[in-house]
């Protein structure tokens, strides 16, 4: 059976020119990403900012055309769909954005915002729309007294709930969530995370869940793809990945988790742990996607680099003795 959604070798390049007479350069935001999400599964996508996660989200939801590659929805290319098919696709796939302040129309009431998809797809009789909207608000923990209010009257957490209610209005099969928590306070993050996880269980919705927060991804995901500079460097079932990360970049990302967790829980400063984190965490900053290093894009920051790393680009393949996992690293090939 075809997966619900499948990205095939997606690339998105932004050509630009520095200054009037500068040479033409290319920003490679996404560079050859393939992944699938099956029905009722959650694929977490992890990576630092600048790794191309948001661009990927916009292509998977057909809001942006890729430079090359394709997105297949139940086996059919979304970029060659006719009007009717595209409308069906829009009904099945929804997106939630990072910034809930930017993702609601400031001139529309909560009712108008949530009723819009219902009206577009004619999902309810006119007289039943209000009832349906109230039901959606209830699902995200909001009351119907807010129907006539405007986005600027709400806090970030409330707005994100409204965004989720809008996404749910069409009863989607897949929600692409692009860092839905990172603009929110920690206490609110947990509430929103619970809503999303309930949706997965109750409505059997699939998620493409993009985040830089590994703990959130661990909590929600069945599978995880780790992105670095527009490429997937490791893909695996969530359990295996969190038990034994293979790519040195993933290892580095994970090393910082317990320390952050401990710090947030208010644990006293632990010198040994801090030292361990310091050693494993990727050194320096992520390079600019305009100027991607030759060979393995991670090699300048990699603690385990050896001779082939700055020459050959490692391919994503199954390492020996690790069935079902994929990693793009010379250490494992």
């Amino acid at each position, binding site marked *: 059976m075809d997966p619900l959604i499948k990205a095939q070798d997606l690339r998105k390049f932004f050509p630009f020119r520095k200054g009037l007479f500068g040479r033409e350069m290319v920003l490679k935001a996404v560079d050859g990403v393939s992944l699938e999400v099956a029905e009722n599964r959650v694929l977490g996508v992890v990576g630092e900012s600048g790794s191309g996660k948001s661009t990927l989200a*916009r292509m998977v*939801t057909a*809001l942006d055309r890729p430079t090359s590659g394709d997105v297949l929805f139940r086996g059919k290319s979304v970029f060659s769909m006719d009007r009717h098919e595209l*409308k069906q696709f*829009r*009904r099945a*796939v*929804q*997106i939630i*954005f990072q*910034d809930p302040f*930017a*993702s*609601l*129309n*400031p*001139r*529309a009431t909560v009712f108008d915002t949530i009723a*819009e*998809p219902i009206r*577009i*797809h004619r999902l309810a009789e006119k007289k039943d729309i209000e009832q349906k909207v109230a039901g959606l608000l209830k699902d995200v923990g909001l009351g119907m007294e807010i129907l006539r209010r*405007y986005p*600027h*009257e*709400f*806090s970030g*957490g*409330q707005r994100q709930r409204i*965004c989720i209610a*809008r996404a749910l*209005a*069409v009863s989607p099969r897949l929600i692409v969530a692009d860092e839905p928590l990172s603009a929110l306070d920690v206490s609110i993050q947990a509430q929103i995370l619970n809503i999303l996880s309930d949706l997965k269980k109750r409505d059997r919705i699939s998620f493409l869940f993009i985040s830089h927060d590994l703990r959130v991804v661990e909590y929600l995901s069945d599978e995880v793809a780790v992105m670095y500079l527009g490429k997937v460097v490791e893909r695996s079932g969530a359990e295996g990945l969190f038990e034994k990360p293979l790519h040195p970049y993933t290892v580095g990302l994970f090393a910082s988790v317990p320390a952050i967790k401990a710090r947030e829980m208010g644990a006293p400063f632990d010198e040994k742990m801090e030292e361990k984190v310091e050693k494993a965490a990727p050194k320096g900053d992520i390079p600019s996607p305009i100027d991607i290093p030759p060979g393995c894009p991670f090699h300048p920051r990699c603690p385990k680099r050896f001779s082939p790393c700055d020459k050959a680009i490692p391919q994503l393949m199954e390492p020996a003795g690790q069935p079902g996992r994929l990693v793009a690293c010379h250490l494992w090939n």
Partner: protein
Amino acid sequence: MSVKSLVWRRFKKNRLALAGLAVIAALILIAIFAPHIAPYSPTGIDVNHVLSPPSWRHPFGTDELGRDVLTRMLLGSRVSLSVGFIAMGIAVLIGTLVGSLAGFYGGKVDSVLMRFVDIMLAFPSFVLILAVIAIVPPSIFIIMAVIGVTGWMDVARLVRAEFLTLKHRDFVLASKSAGAGSMRLIFREILPNALSPVFVAATFGVAGAILTESALSFLGLGVQPPNPSWGNILASGKDNIETAWWLSLYPGLAILITVLSYNLVGEGLRDALDPRLWETERYETGEDGQ
């Protein structure tokens, strides 16, 4: 609280803009009820009182045919205000349409439309107006149409610029993801958020249109005598400026005050509609949600 009431709350704080709004409101009332409050007939000639200075009988004096200047100015206000509104209405309509299409579709559509805007801007519009009026007989409707058709380019540019940034905003993408078509995206999602600068430009534009109409009438190309307009009263004043100052002063002041009021309201609106100032307002008044 709606966006409208927020804008009004900010607008209220600007005393000058509020005064301008009051003057415009008064002028609109005067224009509506002009025939009822005017003491004389605007075309009633009184050969015994030619060019008489302001007095209790004629508060603004009389003109070279003995007609009451106050009466003619009251009725002339109808011309100025309606030309201002309707000309600007036409300009806003054309400008919004052109700007929306150019900004939303981009690419070739944008190039073609914006080159057309450049061509229109390269025309000295006053000369263009004069040329049109030289061909077709001047009537108030022709004047409105011509001022509108030559004055939409600024609006088009403003609307296009707003569309260029708004069309990539998350709320527009969210609506697209919900299945919204181009028309819904343009008119329901983007346009309502692109109108703030248009309101401001339109307010200033009304002032400009009033000035243009006065200038045309002053040159004898606008409203034709014996119908009164502030511009043609002013024109008759220039022939008698040494003996009858009231013929120039009062219509001149009326134009000045009206244009000034519109400009003050425009500036007040510009400040009140600036969405960057809303967020701070929200926290100041403690209306944060949770």
